[in-house]
């Protein structure tokens, strides 16, 4: 039997990573516009210690990754953790056979089309959209460069899904040491996605601004508690301030990984939201939204800097603490400018 689902096309945002790319592919396969769904959210939330060593990590996304990424839409995702490789394959085969493209967690070390093939262990997420029993192949879609859409053998796929993802070299320190465990994920979309109109755009912006200015997380609405739960604008400031303080002490190597990974998620969300605002400004002839898009994009570009400042500070975190503080100051200034403009725009 051979199944190859249609409407599986690449989608990627240059400030996102495999999580955004995979969710974009899956949303599109379900008939939804990836930018309209993934780009609506813009907020900040993190609970200290929540970090997981996976490129598809999202704060507060343990229950529903897609739900945490797209809180303004009736969408969700659910992880499956099959008990053994045979069940892991059967479950995915059944889902795809039923017409549902799904996502699978993999270790790039075992995937021939990934640059890390037989070199570096690192976890990754991609879309499964078909299989061929006679050829013993599975069809995968992966828009993360080098873009791939095609077949690999089931043995290769199984190896990638059940890798222990060990840390073999002094390399991808951020996303190793976390067994893949055969996990796979399916998404639910709708019913009744909101219409892409100006009312929806206003509703979304109002909610985003309210959460950021109200020092709350966007997804669950948790209030910043002044301690380990960071939410909204105040949480952004405290998160960066706490990172700089830990870096200055110089005795906390985990601060590099934690700040890098969280900054990566915020960078992605902020960057996609900037494009969402630009798309709204264009679609509804609202130049103030286009201008706000540019300000939000500037905030994203500060997160690009934060991410690399901390990543390069592993050998001497104290030396880079001041850089994080300086960057936080300008990031927050630009964040405030964007919030002011957005509040006026709606």
């Amino acid at each position, binding site marked *: 039997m051979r199944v190859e689902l249609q409407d599986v096309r690449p*989608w990627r*945002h*240059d*400030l996102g990573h495999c999580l955004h790319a995979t969710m974009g592919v899956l949303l599109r396969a379900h008939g939804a516009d*990836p*930018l309209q769904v993934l780009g609506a959210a813009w907020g900040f939330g993190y609970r200290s210690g929540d970090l997981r060593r996976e490129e598809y990590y999202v704060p507060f996304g343990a229950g529903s990754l897609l739900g945490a990424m797209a809180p303004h839409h009736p969408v969700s995702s659910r992880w499956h953790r099959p008990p053994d490789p045979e069940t892991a394959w059967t479950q995915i085969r059944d889902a795809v056979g039923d017409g549902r493209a799904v996502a699978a967690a993999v270790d790039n070390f075992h995937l021939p*089309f990934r*640059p*890390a093939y037989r*070199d*570096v262990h690192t976890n990754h997420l991609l879309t499964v959209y078909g299989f061929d029993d006679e050829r013993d192949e599975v069809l995968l879609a992966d828009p993360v*460069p*080098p*873009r791939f859409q095609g077949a690999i053998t089931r043995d290769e796929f199984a190896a990638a899904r059940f890798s222990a993802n060990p840390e073999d*070299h002094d*390399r*991808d320190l951020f996303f190793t040491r976390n067994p893949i465990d055969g996990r796979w994920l399916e998404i639910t979309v709708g019913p009744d996605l909101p219409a892409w109109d100006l009312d929806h755009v206003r509703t979304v912006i109002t909610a985003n601004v309210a959460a950021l200015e109200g020092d709350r997380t966007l997804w669950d609405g948790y209030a910043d508690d002044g301690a380990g739960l960071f939410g909204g604008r105040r949480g952004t400031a405290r998160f960066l301030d706490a990172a700089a303080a830990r870096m200055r002490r110089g005795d906390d190597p985990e601060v590099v990984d934690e700040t890098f990974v969280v900054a990566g998620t915020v*960078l992605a969300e902020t960057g996609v939201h900037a*494009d969402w605002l*630009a*798309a709204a400004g*264009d679609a509804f002839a609202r130049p103030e939204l286009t201008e706000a898009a540019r300000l939000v994009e*500037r905030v994203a*570009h*500060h997160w*690009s*800097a934060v*991410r*690399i*400042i901390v*990543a*390069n500070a592993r050998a001497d975190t104290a030396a880079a603490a001041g*850089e994080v503080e*300086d*960057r936080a100051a300008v990031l927050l200034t630009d964040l405030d400018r964007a919030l002011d403009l957005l509040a006026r725009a709606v």
Partner: protein
Amino acid sequence: MVNHVSPTLVRSAVGAAHPVAIEDFLDSVGVEPNSRSGLGAFNIWGNAFPAEALPCGTLTELDRVPFRFPPADGVRPDHLRCRGQRIPLPAGRADWIHVLGAAERRTEDDVLLEYADGSARRQWLRLSDFWPQTGPRFGERLAFRTGSMLYPRHEQLTMSPSIWHQRIPVAVSDGLRAIVLPHNPAMHLFALTLVEAAA
């Protein structure tokens, strides 16, 4: 996705051009020859450009702008990360500072231009991502796209990273004294050239 990638770098005619000496400011190895030193790390994962695909150690011309591309032996620094360096500039009129560079994820920051008359003004430096299959975001022109990307233990032929040709406007054309780079190590520069637009 909104498409921001169409090049918008409108060229004025190039008059006098002065490549800037940045040798003393190079601090990073991002290019390796095929003999492989293993020290190349343009990004945090140790990826590097293959030297054979770049005009290393030569005066090269892109869109009629000459650039002095640094030598690259995989050991000595061949480019700089922006870390607040103050780089003296040659005397003379200039309308633009042309830049060869790329970023780890696109980013932007202001540079401080110090003028010969003692004034100083900030201008934007915007650099797009070097990552393969990622277009220019800020209207840069493609300077180089290599046919492969180096990983610490192998060469990946399916990955083609980019170096961009960007430019910074000079608001006062009577002469520059120095450029102060931002503290943004995600920004990498290979070469700077002052350009005076032809009358």
